[in-house]
């Protein structure tokens, strides 16, 4: 008797019992269920929720692997004399086995904790509420390790995941009913609850916390952090684009995120309207700030100078902007649903991201807050888009009948 048959008998055995959803989830995750629909006609589409989720995960895997290499690279760059500054995309200094090993053992626990705790909460709620386990956590569970600093203590991640899944999703009714993006809720919780572990110059490179204050201290300032303090940055534009910079685990490589974006657009999972308008919004705000600088309204004594003077398109490749625009803003549940709404929603995300980034050095990552804010407004945007459309068509009817 194969595993599938065993699971099927288990399912039959537990039918109607309290634990049934837990077994059913395993069953449907691994195999197609044995049941088929018997009555009525149904539209059959291959892109069910599980497939959607898996596609996003596939788009995330390159970022995850790159994140492992980068985590090790950033540490080794400062501690291991054999590792020197990587040059170019295929640099052996970066794609180095010792980099990968360090990063792997740091990132893997984050992934395991994220999935383990999140799925445990999902199973618990499914059993209590008596509904089937939803696939919603599959993507969230992969996003979470990619948007936290490498050295975040695991227990904090546990607390945050429980909070994010329960308060951010389950209280609203589970997958598909949430107002806020759960992964960003988790990150926002960490950010406000444990700010010393989520910002500053100690947490972005593995080992920086333990060595702080010692002679061999590792410094791990992110580019945004340096800019907010009006410091010079020591990274080339190519480094920023390829992702050889400190930052949250999976957010650094704009190149891979771009490839992921193309993949999501090609498979029609992610909305190109949102991605494009988010980029446009950010560029618009960046240009405004550049204009302010070149008009001479502020000079280098201003505390906003560093970030305002950043060339407008650099904003796209530093920090978590690209990652947020591609993987977070496009979340189909929390984004606007109408096409016109998507343009407005995305544009405002980009616009507000850079605004927060520049004007509030205490929150150097404005993307997270901008997306959460626009998540809240997405239904309102949709409402007015729909109402506008209704009005337009009413007018058309009147013209006809008149």
């Amino acid at each position: 008797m194969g595993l599938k048959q065993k699971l099927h008998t288990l399912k039959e055995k537990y039918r109607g019992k309290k634990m049934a959803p837990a077994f059913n989830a395993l069953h449907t995750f691994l195999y197609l269920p044995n049941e088929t629909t018997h009555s009525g006609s149904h539209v059959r589409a291959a892109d069910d929720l599980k497939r959607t989720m898996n596609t996003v995960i596939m788009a995330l895997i390159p970022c995850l692997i790159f994140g492992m290499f980068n985590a090790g690279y950033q540490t080794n760059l400062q501690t291991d004399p054999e590792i020197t500054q990587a040059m170019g995309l295929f640099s052996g200094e970066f794609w180095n086995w010792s980099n990968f090993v360090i990063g792997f053992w740091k990132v893997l626990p984050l992934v395991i904790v994220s999935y383990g705790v999140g799925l445990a909460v999902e199973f618990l709620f499914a059993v209590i509420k008596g509904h089937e386990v939803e696939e919603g956590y599959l993507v969230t569970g992969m996003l979470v390790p990619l948007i936290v600093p490498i050295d975040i203590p695991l227990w904090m991640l546990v607390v945050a995941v429980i909070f994010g899944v329960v308060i951010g999703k389950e209280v609203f009714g589970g997958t598909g009913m949430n107002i806020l993006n759960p992964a960003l809720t988790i990150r926002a919780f960490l950010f406000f609850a444990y700010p010393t572990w989520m910002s500053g110059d100690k947490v972005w490179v593995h080992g920086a916390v333990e060595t702080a204050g010692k002679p061999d201290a590792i410094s791990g300032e992110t580019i945004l952090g340096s800019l907010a303090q009006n410091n010079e940055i020591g990274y080339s534009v190519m480094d920023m684009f390829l992702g050889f910079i400190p930052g949250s685990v999976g957010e650094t490589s704009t190149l891979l995120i771009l490839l992921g974006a193309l993949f999501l657009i090609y498979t029609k999972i992610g909305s190109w309207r949102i991605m494009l308008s988010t980029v446009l919004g950010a560029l618009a705000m960046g240009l405004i700030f550049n204009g302010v600088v070149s008009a001479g309204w502020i000079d280098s004594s201003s505390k906003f100078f560093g970030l305002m003077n950043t060339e407008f398109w650099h904003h796209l490749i530093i920090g978590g902007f690209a990652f947020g625009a591609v993987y977070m803003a496009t979340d189909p549940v929390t984004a606007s649903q109408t096409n016109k709404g998507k343009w407005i929603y995305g544009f405002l995300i980009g616009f507000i991201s850079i605004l927060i980034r520049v004007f509030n050095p205490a929150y150097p990552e404005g993307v997270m807050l901008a997306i959460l804010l626009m998540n809240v407004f997405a239904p309102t945007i949709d409402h007015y888009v729909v109402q506008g459309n209704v009005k337009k068509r009413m007018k058309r009817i009147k013209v006809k009948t008149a």
Partner: protein
Amino acid sequence: MGLLSKKDSKLIMDPLADNNPITIQVLGICSALAITAQLKPSIVMAVSVLFVMGVGNVVISLMRNIIPSKIRIIVQLIVVATLVIIVDQVLKAFAYSLSKELSVFIGLIITNCIIMGRFEAFALGNKPWRSFLDGIGNAAGYGVILIIVGFFRELLGSGTLFGFPVLGNPVTKTGLYAIGYENNGFMVLPPMALIVVGIIIWVQRSKNKELIEEN
């Protein structure tokens, strides 16, 4: 309870649980969010409201037949304002630092909707003794939630209770902090108070399904 008839004790017990002013009627939320970052101000606030509501309800109830109904809100306001000023002055005289900490929120007891609500809904139509019990009951119901919220927010947010470190010292890393525990800074911020109140509402309604409203 020999002192209280069944009907009277219901006046006190109801607002404590199934008709709680905060979790069921969702009144008086603003002060519940503002001052519950620590336990001590929460308790002082609870006691202050207890005093204002107990005495205020009795006063309004005594005057209920001579208040012209057209100006009853003004009369109620004057009664509340008088009582709140007494509380404020007493705090300033005997607990100055606490009164600093609570700052404007003692004065804002005047606008606490629970108080005006009970004046309007109960004291204007009931005898002084029953009004007194109703005032005490509602203030206690308000206070219980404040204290629960204050307890969790201070414990998890600052690691202290009444200002005493109970989880160890975060600077010298003793107690829980020695094994890597850290205070949850989010608990100190007002949004978390709202979430804690929300969780209390959730727990209460899932225990007593009758409290869940129909849409």
